């Protein structure tokens, strides 16, 4: 179904999602235990409408790191992985931002939950 470069891209998307999952899973585990993480780095955000730092690190930082490594080490495979990670990361960051903006724009009377960072 996938060609070789597409398989590398899929691996890159999984790597990015894995780092994202690591940050989110730790946050949720601590919340489950009953000691939620304070809204500071890496779980804070510059603005309520923007994704928190952990999302930025995972979804933008990891593809960038893969890209720089690929270019630096002259490994086209890593560059392809960076591309896949970027497709996952850009989509996730844009979707998250749109959702946050929509929640902020929604009148409080209709909102059932407050957006957490």
């Amino acid at each position, binding site marked *: 179904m996938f060609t070789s470069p597409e398989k590398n891209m899929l691996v890159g998307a999984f790597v990015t*999602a894995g780092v994202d999952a690591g940050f989110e899973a730790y946050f949720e585990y601590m919340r489950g235990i009953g000691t939620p993480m304070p809204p500071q780095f890496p779980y804070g955000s510059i603005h309520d409408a923007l994704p928190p730092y952990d999302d930025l690190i995972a979804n933008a930082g990891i593809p960038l790191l893969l890209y720089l490594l690929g270019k630096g080490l002259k490994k086209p495979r890593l560059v392809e992985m960076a591309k896949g990670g970027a497709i996952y990361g850009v989509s996730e960051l844009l979707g998250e931002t749109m959702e946050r903006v929509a929640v902020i724009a929604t009148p409080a009377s209709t909102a059932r939950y407050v957006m957490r960072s």
Partner: protein
Amino acid sequence: MNLNILKLDPTTKGMLIGGLAGSITFHAERYLSRTQPAYPAELNQKLEPHLPRNGELVTSVAPPAAMWVLARRSPKLTNIRNGSFFYSIPHLIQRVAVNAAYAEGVAARPAARIVAPATMSKYISNNSTPRVAATSGLSKYVLTA
């Protein structure tokens, strides 16, 4: 005027469109579930505590499945289908991991227990009777398990 400021080739552009379609579908569902009081309860429920909500499962699986069917009919949509896979499948696994972590956290939450008394009371006859421990609150004694 060329608006392609990122200089994306048509393949990458198609993949990005597919990824964005998956992401917008997922986040639109989550927005609706968080803000609409009349949102269907079935979509807010979970099949199992370690899994995401039913609505999240549906919106993670539906876009790549729909694109897979459409791409079989029209090969032009192959790149969009691939982009949809690159976003939705890793994201679904991410959501399962996050929900599983929360469920494990809840399971590992320490139960609210009263510390056993440091010294045994002379009034304790055996383990089946309630034990007492001194406290500094309003009550002088607290029942322990």
